[in-house]
């Protein structure tokens, strides 16, 4: 979720809670204030009664303004305290509605007898109060949230603009590029973020350069000593009268120096492809390339008695650099031959946007995603374990998609690409 949306949701949610709490507080305050006011009023009326209680004992005093709200009762004793307030309700005689009211009850001795006086004052009902406050609160909060949304948006865009600039710069950054030079930001946090990122990219670029130099030097420098080893073994082999043991030793040196050399070159190639140091765009004719690679593996295919079937659109142009395409197709077909079973089959399907190579073979022994990891080999493979890694790297850098699946004795590798219109 976007930071802006999330902030808006948080703000809206929090303000809603705050408004509800504030509404509650408002309700309590208003009720207290209104009770206080009524109490003062009742007190004033009480003063009038206390000044002349006999007057109010007479039933016919119709001209006393609060007469109808006064109720008298003869009691036996005057309790302590002699006055108190309470809330209660009464039924209005005219509308027969239940009315909420505030009561003041006090006791006086009138002509020697203790009398209980009860005064009441109608008040705003709490439901009414609650209703009004809720409406006000809802209206206020809605307006507030609405405003908040726009304010938030406005502030967000203004304050975070340098952050988004930084984000954009990082997104397009790759280790092979120059270190990022991020603009100064007036906001201290973003300024320090930019500085940190600039420093990091400095380090990444330097490490990347070092790694590239190291790899280039290593792969390059290893070839010459290997050439020396190979030439010496070849000379040694020319010595007359070598025993079988000696020949075996020479053979082992030769085998391993070849293996090392191929490993070195494959890794260098993998590194170059992965670091975009090979041309990635271009095009080549695929059906011819497939034939070429099949011919190259002719003896192997015959030896394993593998049957090849082809459904190939010809000519068909694949939008990939020629050299990369050759590596990819060579490794795909080689893989299908080498990991086949004697008397098995290979099916090659080439059509616009898709190349599929299916071969019969044993059930996978590892989780299949491991096939694309460097140096994972079948138990009796004499290969380097780099073929599929090369295919994967190539499809990664060229944006081709690579799928693999195994179904009932058949391994299928499918390369797909977007056809140029």
């Amino acid at each position, binding site marked *: 979720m976007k930071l802006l949306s999330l902030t808006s949701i948080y703000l809206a949610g929090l303000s809603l809670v705050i408004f509800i709490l504030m509404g509650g507080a408002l309700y309590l305050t208003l009720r207290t204030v209104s009770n206080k006011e009524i109490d003062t009023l009742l007190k004033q009326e009480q003063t009038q009664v206390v000044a002349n209680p006999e007057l109010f004992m007479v039933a016919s005093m119709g001209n006393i303004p609060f007469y109808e709200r006064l109720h008298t009762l003869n009691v036996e004793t005057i309790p302590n305290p002699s006055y108190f307030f309470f809330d209660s309700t009464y039924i209005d005689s005219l509308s027969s509605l239940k009315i909420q009211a505030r009561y003041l009850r006090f006791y006086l001795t009138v002509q020697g007898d203790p009398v209980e006086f009860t005064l009441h004052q109608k008040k705003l009902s709490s439901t009414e109060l609650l209703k009004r406050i809720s409406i006000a609160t809802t209206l206020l909060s809605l307006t507030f949230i609405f405003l908040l949304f726009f304010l938030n948006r406005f502030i967000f865009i203004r304050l975070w603009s340098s952050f988004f600039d930084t984000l954009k710069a990082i997104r397009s950054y790759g280790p092979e590029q120059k270190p990022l030079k991020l603009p100064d930001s007036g906001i201290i946090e973003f300024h320090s973020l930019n500085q940190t990122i600039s420093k990091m990219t400095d380090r990444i670029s330097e490490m990347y350069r070092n790694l590239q130099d190291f790899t280039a030097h290593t792969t*390059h*420098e290893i*070839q*010459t000593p*290997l*050439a*020396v*080893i*190979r*030439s*010496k073994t*070849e*000379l040694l*082999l*020319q010595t007359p009268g070598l025993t*079988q043991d000696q*020949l*075996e030793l*020479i*053979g082992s040196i*030769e*085998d391993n*120096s*070849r293996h090392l*050399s*191929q490993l070195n*070159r*494959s890794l260098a190639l993998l590194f*170059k492809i992965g670091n975009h140091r090979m041309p990635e765009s271009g095009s080549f004719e695929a059906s011819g390339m497939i034939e070429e690679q099949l011919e*190259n*593996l002719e*003896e*192997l295919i015959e*030896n394993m008695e593998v049957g090849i079937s082809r459904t190939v659109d010809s000519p068909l142009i694949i939008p990939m650099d020629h*050299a990369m395409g050759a590596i990819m197709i*060579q490794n795909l077909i*080689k893989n299908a031959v*080498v990991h086949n079973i004697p008397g098995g089959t290979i099916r090659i399907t080439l059509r616009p946007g898709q190349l599929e190579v299916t071969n019969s073979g044993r059930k996978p022994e590892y989780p299949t995603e491991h096939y694309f990891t460097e140096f994972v080999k079948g138990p009796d*493979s*004499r*290969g*380097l*374990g*780099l*073929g599929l890694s090369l295919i994967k790297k190539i499809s990664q850098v060229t944006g081709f998609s690579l799928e693999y699946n195994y179904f009932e004795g058949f391994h299928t590798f499918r390369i797909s690409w977007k056809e140029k219109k």
Partner: protein
Amino acid sequence: MIPVLIIEDEASLRKSMVSYLETAGYRCTTAGSYHEALKVIDLQDYYAVLVDLGLPDGDGLNIIRLLKENQSGCGIIVVSARDTLEDRVKGLETGADDYLVKPFHLSELNARIQSVIRRTRRGGQMNLTYKSLVVDPEGKTALLAGEPVELTRKEFDILVYLLTNRTKVVTKDSIAEHIWGDSNYGIDYSDAVYTHMKNLRRKLEQRTGEVWVQTVYGMGYKLEEET
């Protein structure tokens, strides 16, 4: 003796090349640096020059340019540890006739030198002869006592390779690399070499009744010495 010039800064490798080539019919002049190369470059007409591009004190490509100006008839082979397409193209565009990547087999080096000489010195006697066999590598024909031998392309190439390195033991690996190139990593071609070699031998033995190609246990093959 065929005069060749070897420009290679790695002394140990240079020594191996000299030692193999001198016993294969060449007379070798050597240079271990760019400046040494400049001194010997005009001493004589070389049939072939091997140039290492990665010299410590100068650019090997410059040597190729100088050779092209002064010795138009010599074949130039770049011997380099760099195997990128750009490097190859640059070498060939500057004027080299071939490009050999390290590490290489000495037998392959010899085959490349022979091939370059055949291409640059036309008119000379370029046929390879062995006993009653006459092979024309460019015309792709093999005559046994005057009669053509039917060989497949790969059998023919193996035969030429053996004849070129006739006094040497030629390894299966070097044959495989010679026939299928050096970029087929992880493929075991020894069975394929064996099959082609079996067919080649059968075709020769049927006609001559002699065993010409000897097997060197587990390693490779060698042509029987001519008497």
